C-alpha cells in the first residue's frame, strides 16, 4: 500500500538528499571541521544512530517487505561488531606490547610478542593463549571478510533449517529469539574465547591512528556510517523496486499463492534473510568502534525486539519509515535515558524518565500498532493519497468483493 510505484521512485533521491544535507550540516558544526557546536560525544551518537538506521533498513526488508518477523537480527549486528572488534583489540595490543618490549636488551621473538598480546587480552578471563576463533585476528582484511561471512553464514544455515521445514509466523519469531539468546549466553561464557562478559573494549582507539584526536576519528566514522547507510538504502530500494519486490511482498501477503505461481518461496526467504543478516553485520562493524565496547549483553533478545519496535513506529514496508523510526526512537531514547529530560513532579510522585522511558516507549508502540499501523511514515501518504483518490474505487455498478463473496 505505502509503496506505490510513484513514492518508491521519488523517495530514494529525496532520502539521499536529506542524508547529504545532514552530513554537510553536521560536518560544518563538528569540532575538527567546523564551529564545534556539536560535541564529539554527540557526533558519535549521530554516527551510531546512522548505523542503527542501516540495520533498521535491513529489518524492514526482512519484516516489512517479506513478512518474516525476525527477532534475531541484532545478533548479526553484534557478530559484525565482534568480528571487527577482534582485529581492533589485537592490533592495538600488539602495538602497545611491541613498544614496551622495544626497550628490552634482547629483541623479542614473534612468539614472545604473540603470547604477550594473549596474556594482555585474556588476562581478565584467566587465560594467556589465543583461542582458535582468533586465528585471523592479526589481519584486517581477513577480519573484515569475517564481518560479512560470519553473520552471513549463520543467517544462511539458520534460515535454511527454518524455512525448509516451513516454520513461519510466531514460531519463526520465537526461533530467532532463541537463536540470539543462545548466542548471547554462549558469549557470556569465559571459555567462548571472546572474553565472556567483559566483551571487547577500547575499540574507539583505532590502531595506527593514535596521533589523531577522537574528534577527527569520530567524524570519519560518521562519514563512513552515512556512506554505508546511503549504499544500503540504495541496495534495498533496488531489491524492492522490481519483480523481486513484487514477489517478496506477495510472500508477505499470501505465501501459498506465490508458491502456486511456481516461485520457490523458501529460496526467496533465505536470500532476503541472509542478505539482511550481512547488512546487519556491516552496520554492527561500523557501530561498535564508535561505541568503544561490545559485550554479550548487546546480543540479548530484547535488542532485536527494540529493532522491530523502531521499524513498527517508523512504518514498515517503506524504507524511509524504518530510517525515521530508528533515528527518532534511538535519539529520543538517548535523550530520556541520558538524564537530559526534565523530571515531572506530580507532587506525590516524581516521574524520572530514566525509569519511565521504557514504559513510554511500550505505550507508544501499542498506540502506533492500534491507531496508526502505517507508523510515522504514514504521514507522508496523507499528501500523495489525496491526490490519487480521484481515480480510485471500482466502476459504478460493479460489486465490491465483500458483497459478492457469497
Amino acid at each position, binding site marked *: *500500500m505505502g509503496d*506505490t*510505484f510513484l513514492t518508491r521512485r521519488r523517495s530514494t533521491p529525496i532520502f539521499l538528499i536529506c542524508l547529504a544535507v545532514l552530513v554537510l550540516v553536521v560536518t560544518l558544526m563538528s569540532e575538527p571541521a567546523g564551529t564545534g557546536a556539536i560535541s564529539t560525544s554527540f557526533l558519535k551518537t549521530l554516527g551510531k544512530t546512522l548505523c542503527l538506521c542501516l540495520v533498521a533498513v535491513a529489518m524492514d526488508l526482512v519484516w516489512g517487505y517479506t513478512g518474516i518477523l525476525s527477532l534475531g537480527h541484532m545478533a548479526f549486528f553484534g557478530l559484525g561488531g565482534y568480528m571487527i572488534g577482534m582485529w581492533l583489540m589485537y592490533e592495538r595490543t600488539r602495538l602497545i606490547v611491541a613498544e614496551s618490549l622495544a626497550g628490552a636488551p634482547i629483541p623479542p621473538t614473534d612468539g614472545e610478542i604473540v603470547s604477550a598480546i594473549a596474556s594482555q587480552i585474556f588476562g581478565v578471563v584467566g587465560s594467556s593463549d589465543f583461542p582458535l576463533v582468533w586465528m585471523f585476528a592479526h589481519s584486517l582484511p581477513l577480519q573484515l571478510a569475517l564481518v560479512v561471512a560470519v553473520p552471513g553464514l549463520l543467517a544462511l544455515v539458520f534460515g535454511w533449517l527454518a524455512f525448509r521445514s516451513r516454520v513461519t509466523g510466531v514460531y519463526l519469531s520465537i526461533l530467532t529469539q532463541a537463536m540470539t539468546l543462545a548466542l548471547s549466553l554462549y558469549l557470556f561464557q569465559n571459555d567462548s574465547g571472546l572474553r565472556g562478559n567483559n566483551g571487547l573494549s577500547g575499540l574507539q582507539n583505532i590502531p595506527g591512528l593514535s596521533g589523531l584526536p577522537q574528534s577527527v576519528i569520530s567524524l570519519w566514522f560518521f562519514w563512513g556510517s552515512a556512506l554505508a547507510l546511503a549504499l544500503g538504502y540504495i541496495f534495498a530500494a533496488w*531489491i524492492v523496486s*522490481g*519483480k*523481486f519486490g*513484487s*514477489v517478496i*511482498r*506477495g510472500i508477505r*501477503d*499470501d505465501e*501459498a*499463492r506465490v*508458491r*502456486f*505461481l*511456481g*516461485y*520457490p*518461496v523458501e*529460496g*526467496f526467504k533465505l*536470500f532476503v534473510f541472509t542478505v539482511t543478516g550481512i547488512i546487519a553485520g556491516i552496520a554492527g562493524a561500523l557501530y561498535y568502534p564508535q561505541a568503544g565496547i561490545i559485550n554479550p549483553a548487546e546480543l540479548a533478545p530484547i535488542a532485536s525486539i527494540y529493532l522491530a519496535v523502531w521499524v513498527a513506529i517508523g512504518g514498515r514496508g517503506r524504507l524511509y519509515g524504518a530510517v525515521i523510526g530508528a533515528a527518532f526512537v534511538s535519539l529520543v531514547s538517548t535523550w530520556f535515558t541520558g538524564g537530559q529530560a526534565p523530571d515531572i513532579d506530580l507532587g506525590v510522585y516524581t516521574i524520572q524518565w530514566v525509569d519511565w522511558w521504557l514504559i513510554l516507549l511500550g505505550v507508544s508502540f501499542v498506540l502506533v500498532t492500534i491507531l496508526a499501523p502505517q507508523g510515522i511514515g504514514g504521514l507522508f501518504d496523507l499528501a500523495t493519497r489525496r491526490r490519487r483518490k480521484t*481515480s*480510485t*474505487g*471500482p*466502476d459504478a455498478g*460493479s*460489486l*465490491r*468483493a465483500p*458483497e*459478492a*463473496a457469497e
Partner: protein
Amino acid sequence: MTQLLEVDGVSVSFDGFKAINNLSFSIGPAELRAVIGPNGAGKTTFMDIVTGKTKPDSGSVLWGARNRSLLKMSESQIARAGVGRKFQRPTVFEDQSVFANLLMALKKTRGPFSVLFYRPSSEDADKVRELAGQIGLAAQIDRLSGELSHGQKQWLEIGMLLAQEPRLMLVDEPAAGMTPAEREHTTDLLKRAASSCAVVVVEHDMDFVRRLGCRVTVLHEGSVLAEGSIDHVTSDPQVIDVYLGR
C-alpha cells in the same frame, strides 16, 4: 491417446472424514472439462491434491507423457511443471497493481537470482498489456488490484493463469460474483484457452456449464458419480437425486 493428467484411486481423509474416496480422473492435453457436484463433494480438495497442497493417503497422480508422479513434487515445482490454478475465492495480490500481478505470473524463470536481475523488456510489457486487454482490464492496468470489483478480480486471476502459459488449468468457480454479461465473456476466455491447453472448470451454475459445451464429470462424496455430455449427466437419475433435484 496419452493423457496429460491421470489421477488414479486417490483417497484423502481429514480427521477420519473421507473427503476424497477412491477418485479416478483423467484429462487429455487440449481438453475442456467441467466438474460439478454438490457442496462438499470434494471438488476443491481434488484441485488441492493435483497442485500439491494436500497429500493424498493413497493413490497416484501422474503427469505428462513421461508419467511423472506429482505426489513427490512441491507446490512450486508442480506449478513450474505446467499446472496453473485459479482459486475459489479470488486471491490476487491486493496491494500491487494489475500490471505487477500479471507480470509476476508471466512465464519466466522463477529463481531468486534471475528474478532479482529481471527487468521487463518491452515485449514482456506488451504481452502483459495484451493480456489485460483480453480480460477487460486494459483501463485498470495501473490500479491496485485490491480496488477492483469481485468479478474483475476473478478475471485478473484468470489473466494470471493465462500469463503462466500452463499445460493444465484448474479453474475453481470462475463465474461467482459475475454479472451475466461477465459470465459470457468468461466462457469465451476459457474456451479459447482450451484450444492450447487442458482446462478443468468447477462451476455450480448449470447454464454456464452448458455454454462451455464440454464433457462433464459429476463428483459426489469424493468420487465420480457420472461422466459424459451435459445432456447425459443431467438425465442421470442419480445425479438428479443428489445434485440437480434439490
